[in-house]
């Protein structure tokens, strides 16, 4: 097991803080969990705790950005995208201010806290706001690169991070390219398009499928918006079937984004592995992924179904 993407975020922030004095970090009383405490310790004069007040977190960041700073703000995804949705929309995205929202503890794998804390709608919410870029890193190396990209990019960025440790997929030589899908395995019968914690499950599924005689391409789509239209269309042309895999409601997230591309450009049979429009519950991350059908085995089943639907 590697480390959690939130850990990599905290480390990346600390590194970038030394290079760029305009980076300001704000947190809403969760700095030990979001790992912004690493930055706070290194640069206390550029760290501000706003207290338990997520709307103010976003509004203050907007003001800092309007005055030329590069604020990184963090909270749990539920509160960053949910509680403060309108502040993100009206104070940050409408004037296209340079605010980076790194939201941790996203998805079912926040675990035992249960449905109230399991953000499975955040990608949908953030993706639908004009001017917003949405990034879902799959491992620590990708997170570090995505954070570095966000610091350079001019405009609002939402970065979705997880609580639990995830396997390492990429080495230190990995190069994050904004809006570009990463091919992890080539295949000809079906393409598994995954993001976040589901990328390693998709890789595992591809190996199982190979044993069953199905050759699967695996694409990691870390940038949900803008999505890599070219890679999705090419996958549809080359393999004729798509399975999307995400730790999010199947409505509005990666699956929807891919479906939008397919129906407009390259219609092929498709299946969506994700949370089936239901709330979660308390449990360990592994138990939740199993119960809500977000495992490699579920991806294998979906791939077999979609291959049968090919003409």
């Amino acid at each position: 097991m590697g480390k959690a993407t939130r850990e990599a975020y905290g480390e990346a922030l600390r590194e970038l803080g030394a290079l760029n004095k305009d980076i300001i970090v704000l947190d809403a009383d969760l700095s030990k969990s979001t790992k912004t405490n690493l930055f706070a310790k290194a640069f206390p004069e550029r760290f501000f705790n706003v207290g338990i007040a997520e709307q103010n977190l976003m509004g203050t960041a907007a003001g800092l950005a309007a005055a030329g700073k590069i604020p990184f703000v963090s909270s749990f995804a539920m509160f960053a995208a949910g509680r403060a949705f309108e502040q993100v929309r009206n104070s940050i995205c409408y004037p296209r201010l340079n605010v980076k929202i790194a939201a941790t503890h996203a998805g079912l794998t926040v675990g035992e806290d249960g449905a109230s804390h399991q953000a499975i709608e955040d990608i949908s919410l953030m993706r639908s706001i004009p001017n917003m870029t949405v990034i879902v890193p799959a491992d620590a190396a990708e997170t570090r690169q995505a954070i570095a990209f966000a610091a350079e990019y001019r405009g609002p960025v939402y970065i979705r991070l997880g609580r639990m440790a995830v396997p390492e997929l990429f080495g230190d030589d990995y190069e994050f390219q904004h809006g570009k899908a990463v091919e992890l395995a080539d295949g000809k019968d079906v393409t598994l398009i995954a993001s976040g914690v589901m990328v390693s499950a998709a890789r595992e599924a591809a190996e199982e499928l190979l044993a069953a005689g199905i050759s699967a391409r695996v694409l990691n789509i870390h940038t949900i918006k803008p999505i890599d239209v070219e890679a999705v269309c090419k996958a549809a042309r080359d393999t004729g079937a798509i399975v999307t895999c995400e730790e999010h409601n199947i409505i509005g997230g990666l699956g929807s984004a891919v479906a939008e591309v397919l129906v407009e450009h390259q219609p092929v049979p498709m299946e969506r592995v994700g949370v089936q429009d239901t709330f979660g519950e308390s449990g360990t991350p592994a138990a939740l992924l199993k119960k809500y059908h977000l495992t490699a085995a579920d991806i294998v089943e979906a791939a077999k179904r979609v291959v049968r639907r090919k003409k």
Partner: protein
Amino acid sequence: MADKLTQDQLTQMAKHARAIRRNIIAAVTEAKSGHPGGSLSAADILTVLYFAEMKVDVRNPADPARDRFVLSKGHAAPVLYATLAEKGFFPAEELLTLRKIDSRIQGHPSMKDVPGVDMSTGSLGQGLAAANGMALAGRLDGRDYRVYALLGDGELEEGMVWEAAMFAPHYKLDNLTAFVDFNGLQIDGPIAEVMSPLPIPEKWQSFGWNVLEIDGHDMNAIYAAIQTAKTVKDRPTMIVAHTVKGKGVCEMENAAEWHGKAPSREECQLFLSELDD
């Protein structure tokens, strides 16, 4: 610096305020919608800020060293636009394109569209947090600019206002001065009846603000309060300005129905004649 305006300045201020009020009425009439009542009540405060106090440069609206203004009660956009036009940020004729298609003069202030607008606002309760961020950035950069914000009294019913109210004294933002445009009326009626945010001065005081209470139509009082605020260290100042909704137009004064209604062309002529020089 003197904390009183000279007689000459007072005459000038009165002239600017009348022109701003005329342009508010003309723009809202032409748009056939908009918010005249709360625009007129804030006209004297914006006049003093932009014509007697704030360091702004119409040739360099984005100057990093400039003073900033955030209109938290963004529906009062007509008073901000009319003031910016009077100051010379853009031609006054453009005010007549308020709320019309293809115009940059949007129904609520848009910072990306209009030179001189420092923050996009309109959804109530969000302005003070942005002003806090600007004040914080100024201090981090070692700049001596000041940040001003104007809030509505009805707006104080939004919870986020009090999140921001906590933040500014906590981080000792003494480069921030805010106003409450205390006209006592919101869309559905008197604030005391709809959902009372009263008492207002005591609330800000208890949150750690330096609080001043003035007549929001007395130019000298507005100016003096701004000067006093500049001398206060380690905490922000809230100027609770008692105002009259619709101030300057008899029929609109203290009438909640003029919160968000445009005058007809006939009414417009009548109101404009009332505001003649």
